[in-house]
């Protein structure tokens, strides 16, 4: 019950930040002010979409690989997928500067093998590195969610489809994929939404071009512009809420978390 009070607060108090004068000026500013906030917000959403799609594309075969392993191996592999979560999140992000940087692992390896003589500087401090790190951070969720739905899938349907002459591609698109859609939706909740709120990654590896809405948000808060910060936060929260309500039809959130 204590919780309820706290949580009802959570949403009203974002508005309370605006007291003094009740005003919508902050909201007007979010949506106008030379369009910068709106533009960055849209950019954040686009990057999150791309990163989520990449997670799904890369993670799907990975989950398939785990689901196809023997029982014993499956539990080992799943533990290995989750393990990175238990090391410092900040340091895991930071380590990527040592991999993608001008004198990082990839560039030094390329030079060693004589592929390049100039370091490829497009690897770090831009949108590319940002997306790579997003995928790195959130792909375990995708793998777990898709693995779970692959596990539940009725394998005999696959055999039946093949027996009836379906090609592997047809079988995948019409039998496997529809049955694993819950996993795909689940990974949207666990990947897309957290990425919208990522602050560390754009700060550490995003560079100038990788500035996201969270960076603007934190700047406002640090400048003690609570009202304006709260307005940005509230716009983001509304977007997330609408997305969740939209997804509610296709995913049962409670199920998702308990499982």
């Amino acid at each position, binding site marked *: 019950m204590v919780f309820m009070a*706290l949580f009802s607060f959570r949403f009203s108090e974002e508005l309370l*930040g605006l007291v003094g004068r009740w005003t919508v000026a902050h909201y007007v500013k979010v949506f106008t002010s030379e369009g910068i906030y709106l533009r960055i917000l849209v950019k954040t959403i686009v990057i999150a979409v791309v990163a989520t799609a990449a997670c799904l594309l890369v993670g799907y075969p990975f989950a398939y690989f785990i689901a196809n392993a023997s029982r014993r191996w499956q539990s080992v592999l799943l533990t290995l997928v989750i393990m990175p979560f238990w090391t410092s999140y900040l340091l895991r992000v930071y380590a990527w500067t040592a991999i993608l940087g001008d004198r990082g692992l990839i560039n030094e390896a390329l030079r060693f093998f004589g592929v390049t003589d100039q370091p490829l500087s497009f690897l770090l401090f831009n949108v590319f590195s940002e997306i790579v790190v997003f995928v790195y951070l959130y792909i375990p969720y995708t793998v777990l969610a898709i693995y779970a739905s692959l596990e539940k899938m009725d394998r005999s349907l696959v055999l039946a489809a093949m027996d009836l002459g379906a090609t592997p591609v047809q079988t995948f698109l019409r039998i496997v994929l529809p049955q694993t859609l819950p996993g795909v939706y689940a990974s949207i909740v666990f990947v897309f939404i957290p990425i919208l709120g990522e602050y560390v990654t754009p700060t550490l590896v995003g560079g100038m071009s990788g500035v996201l809405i969270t960076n603007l948000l934190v700047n406002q808060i640090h400048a003690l512009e609570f009202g304006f910060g709260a307005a940005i936060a509230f716009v*983001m929260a509304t977007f997330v809420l609408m997305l969740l309500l939209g997804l509610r039809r296709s995913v049962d959130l409670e199920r998702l978390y308990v499982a």
Partner: protein
Amino acid sequence: MSPERFPRRSPRWALRLPRLLLALYGLLGFVFLYLPIAVLIVFSFNSSAVITFPLQHFTLSWYRELREDFVLLGAVRNSIVVTAVTTVGATLVGTAAAFPLVRTGFRMKRMVNLFLLLPIVIPGILTGIALLILFVPVLNLTLSLNTVIAGQIVLAGPFVVLVVASRLYGFNQQLEAAAMDLGATPWRTFWHVTFPLILPGVLAGALITFTLTFDEFIVTFFTIGPESTLPMYIWSLVKFGVTPKLNALASIIVVLTLGTLLTANSLLRRRAR
């Protein structure tokens, strides 16, 4: 999908090839997941202060420096305190909140459930800012480790509610009725019947809270005062990019985690036998 079921038109290797590719892909996936951690460990033994290649020579000095860094030790101590208090607090509050949610039927229950889940789904940065605005302009509190703990409880509590609630849903309430019929007081019934049955859920909740809180950055970032916790200390160094000590720290954490996992695993196996 055993290949034997299909007419064998293609040679064996052609049937094996997809599996081989899949295994190769899986291997690459794990390389991707572990490369950053491997890099941290390698650099923790490297004498250069910045993490760039080529490697310099082998050294243990970063590990030595860790031991003498009082700021770090203080941050670790703070982290332990925050995590311990949060774990106890979130577990108590979350368990208590799970009961009315499962046992009583009231209107708007679905709505309440949804709101309860929000702090889990909503990005942490929003929760952090909401808490900051609640603590500072609204409640006029001074930011300290106490506000950090309060924030962490808000963040972790819902996870405890979820795991305990799932335990309560599969709970046979006739057991409680039986205990009461046999003359047990409500208090005794709780400790001897209810509590042992939900204990796995409570423990799981505590474990989740512990792992979540110890490494939590973004909510702490907004709710902390002049003190420092381990993630805040790491952040202060990582921003400037000179972190050889941190590599050593990360390596120690990896080894500890791995050790804990392996021991837990072997203990569980022994118990299963």
